[in-house]
């Protein structure tokens, strides 16, 4: 089976008879895929994400993770083990008084043998760039440091699917690039499925598939080049083109043969071809 997550006519309402935060989603994710989810504030991204590891159960419809229905209680632990989630606000997910214990906590819950733990924990802290803070107290860390601890916690669990809900919102530019590079590497080398929710269009261009959400639905679904070729629709969705794409389109108006460029490298390359 090639689909690892499947949503069938999935809706979610926070209150009975209340508005639907997610509204009739029909969607699936391939095993080993690398997807970014975009959408304005309140468009339903986090609600959808929380249904993909069984944290929320759909009000209507069905969510399956690797064939297992999230609504079936006996699947809960298996699903949590498979699909690791990094939440928007790290304050809500740090539990222990020392960073290493916090990372260990998730492993204990999964029943990982104690002998394996130190190695996994060290690896995860290393990947998340928090090795030097291993023995600090999580609640005394800066915002970005807390976010990195949460990332380490999920990496240590070695899930098959990683769902990042704005996991880099508080990181410095390099931290943001590093964390995304770790995800790229896990995806490329180990076939981990990555679902990356973000408000940064510059990050989105690095994914192979983009989803744009609006009012609980997916309104655009395609490669970055496809999605970013419709600026008008993106603006209606309260989104923007990446800066380089915007510059290339302005130039295209004046000099019709410049194509849509998503990165500075693309734009520089296209410019060079026209420089004589």
């Amino acid at each position, binding site marked *: 089976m090639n689909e690892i997550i499947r949503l069938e006519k999935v809706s979610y309402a926070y209150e009975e008879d209340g508005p639907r935060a997610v509204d009739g989603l029909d969607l699936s994710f391939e095993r080993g895929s690398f997807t970014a989810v975009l959408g304005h504030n309140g468009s339903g991204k986090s609600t959808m994400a929380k249904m993909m590891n069984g944290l929320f159960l759909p009000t209507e419809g069905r969510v399956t993770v690797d064939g297992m229905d999230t609504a079936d209680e006996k699947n809960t632990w298996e699903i949590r083990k498979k699909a690791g989630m990094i939440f928007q*606000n790290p304050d809500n997910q740090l539990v222990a008084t020392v960073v290493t214990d916090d990372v260990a906590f998730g492993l204990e819950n999964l029943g990982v043998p104690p002998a394996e733990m130190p190695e996994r924990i060290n690896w995860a802290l290393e990947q998340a760039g928090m090795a030097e803070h291993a023995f600090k107290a999580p609640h005394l860390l*800066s915002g970005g440091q807390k976010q990195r601890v949460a990332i380490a916690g999920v990496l240590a669990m070695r899930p098959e699917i990683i769902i990042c809900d704005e996991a880099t919102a508080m990181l410095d*530019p390099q931290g943001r690039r590093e964390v995304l590079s770790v995800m790229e590497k896990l995806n490329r080398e180990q076939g981990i499925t990555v679902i990356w929710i973000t408000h940064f269009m510059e990050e989105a261009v690095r994914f192979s598939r983009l989803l744009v959400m609006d009012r609980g639905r997916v309104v655009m679904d395609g490669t970055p080049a496809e999605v970013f070729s419709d600026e008008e629709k993106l603006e209606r969705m309260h*989104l923007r083109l990446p*800066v380089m794409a915007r510059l290339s389109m302005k130039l295209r108006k004046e000099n019709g043969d410049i194509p849509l460029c998503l990165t500075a490298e693309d734009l520089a390359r296209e410019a060079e071809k026209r420089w004589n």
Partner: protein
Amino acid sequence: MELKLDHVTHTYQPGSPFQATAIRDISLTVGDGDFTALIGPTGSGKSTLAQHLNGLLKPTEGTVTLDGEDIHQKGFDRRRVRQQVGLVFQYPETQLFEETVKKDIAFGPRNLGLSEDEIAERVRTAMEQVGLDFENEGDKSPFELSGGKMRRCAIAGVIAMRPKVLVLDEPTAGLDPEAREDLMEMVADLHRKGTAIVMVTHSMDDAAKYCSRTVVLEKGRVVMDGAPREVFSRAEELTRMGLDVPQVLRLGMLLREKGIPFPEDAIREEEAEKALLELFGNRSGPGLQDRKGGRGHA
């Protein structure tokens, strides 16, 4: 107005195993009309510094003065600092608590002991400034608002105190692109109307676009301080410490490597647009025919 940090050092939990010196020997002056970006890698002390500006944290060494008076000296009315220097925390919407938007915004002004009329007037103006609708949104619960609007509500609560300095700690984190743009325009507008702004940000593009001064912190020390153009010209050092340069500057470096004379000091999107059009806009292509007046090379 002059807000001044003089050789300020802050150590958290001194004497405990968690002792950590977050900022060291920082001297910094904020004056009327400033729009300062405070940038620095994760954990470099930005939030700690921000909280010294309104007296929320007390220096372990050094002094903070407002118009020449030490704000931590005995007998100094601390409310004066709270009123003149407004601080908007990271994710401030987590601190909303009143039943309605109006009440939440009125909380600060009420503590100043103002009359009901004056409070109502300030709430109305603050809502207008942040782009919230007094009639339609004022009586809603703040928790019914979208993420971007909650953020504005929290900021309105601070603005309603009519501070002379507004300190914002990563105000656009978590906002969608449009909300982010709107919020930055709102802050720029407050600045134009006379409020001094100090903004902690991880966006080099925003620092380049909006600020007149950029202060860089690394490991608790100020390592650079100057106009954005000056600071961002030190790209290598910035990258080494975990920061970055505005995207336009990076584009410029790539273009110059290829022998294209893109201006070295362009850091803003509109500057890049102008330069690119000058370099490429008048070359062959359908856009060319109907344009009068050639734009030569820069």
